[in-house]
């Protein structure tokens, strides 16, 4: 499941329009996972949020990672591969069952997973209240594995 990209409508914002979300880490004991959403780089609401986060002193690498989805995702269905902000500041912890209710649209390549995991760790270092210690440990392990074997 890790690295899978799903189209998920998690909230009723935007009339419940779905966005791509990548599963970054899974927790087997709790049967849940952490997902990070993607937004078009020209989206109004994501840019409004980024502007406010910058005003609050957050650096861009604590807010998002910009990836060309065409290069970083192996799509398993027809999907418009755009340049996207993967908003690491908007991670959510969800049940794996809820994620699997969405449509799986592809698999994030290890290089993309590495970028997103590194940004989540950077966020946790500057804002240690946000992620649990076990989540940070899992992220560090993921980064280590991806650095030892970039093709994994």
């Amino acid at each position: 499941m890790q690295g899978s990209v799903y189209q998920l409508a998690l909230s009723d914002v935007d009339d419940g329009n779905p966005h791509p979300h990548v599963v970054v880490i899974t927790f087997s004991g709790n049967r849940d996972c952490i997902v990070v959403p993607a937004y078009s780089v020209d989206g109004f609401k994501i840019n409004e949020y980024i502007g406010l986060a910058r005003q609050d002193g957050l650096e861009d690498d604590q807010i998002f990672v910009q990836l060309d989805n065409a290069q970083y995702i192996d799509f398993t269905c027809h999907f418009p591969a755009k340049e996207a902000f993967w908003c690491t500041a908007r991670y959510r912890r969800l049940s794996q069952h809820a994620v699997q209710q969405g449509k799986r649209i592809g698999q994030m390549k290890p290089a993309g997973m590495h970028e997103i995991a590194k940004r989540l760790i950077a966020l946790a270092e500057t804002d240690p209240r946000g992620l649990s210690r076990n989540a940070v440990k899992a992220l560090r392990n993921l980064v280590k594995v991806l650095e030892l074997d970039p093709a994994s």
Partner: protein
Amino acid sequence: MPIDQVDSSQNCAAQSFTMSDRISQLQPFNEHRFDDCIAYLAAKHDRPLTVYEMMKLHVMIDVYHTLDRGTPVIGGTIWPFTNGPVSRSSKSRVSQWQKQYEMKAQMPDGFLVIDEGDRLRVKPARVPDDEDFSESELAAMHRAWGDVVELLDKNGFLASQAFFHCDGFIGRAWKKARSCGQNLNWNDIIDEYHAEHSDEDHSRIKALLRI
């Protein structure tokens, strides 16, 4: 103390909202997180919890965490029931626990039921590691415990009902939702909290809710 009567025919401010102004769900209900929070708090305070306490703890944990981080811990929608704001999802989960206990004497996974005759309480059979929670989640759980369990223990059920119907910011958000017959709106919850804590800036949290 009577619960304020709400006239559903009265003008509803929320009806003038556009759909995008109403946010009733920030993420789907995460049943594993609900179980973890309830088990952790019951174990930490060595206090088996009633259904009422579990329902209100879910609401207030999510409210305080959303005010702090823009995201709930457990998730789901919150409905303005007669007894105050309650998540339909956790209500349904705990009703299932009650039904299985009453019909088959079956314990819910990870919990033990204590039958007090007139009501049931649950206590955890296993306790989650506190490193499974972030500092912000632990802080939200701590505040929720104060608003729900400590208030009940100290001032009783009527004081708790007043908090959830009129006295507290969550009570005012409940009242708005009740008058419209809709789920509680997260923008209302934040606005009502902000009215009591105007020195705090919630603009980034509100922007985060919109993505």
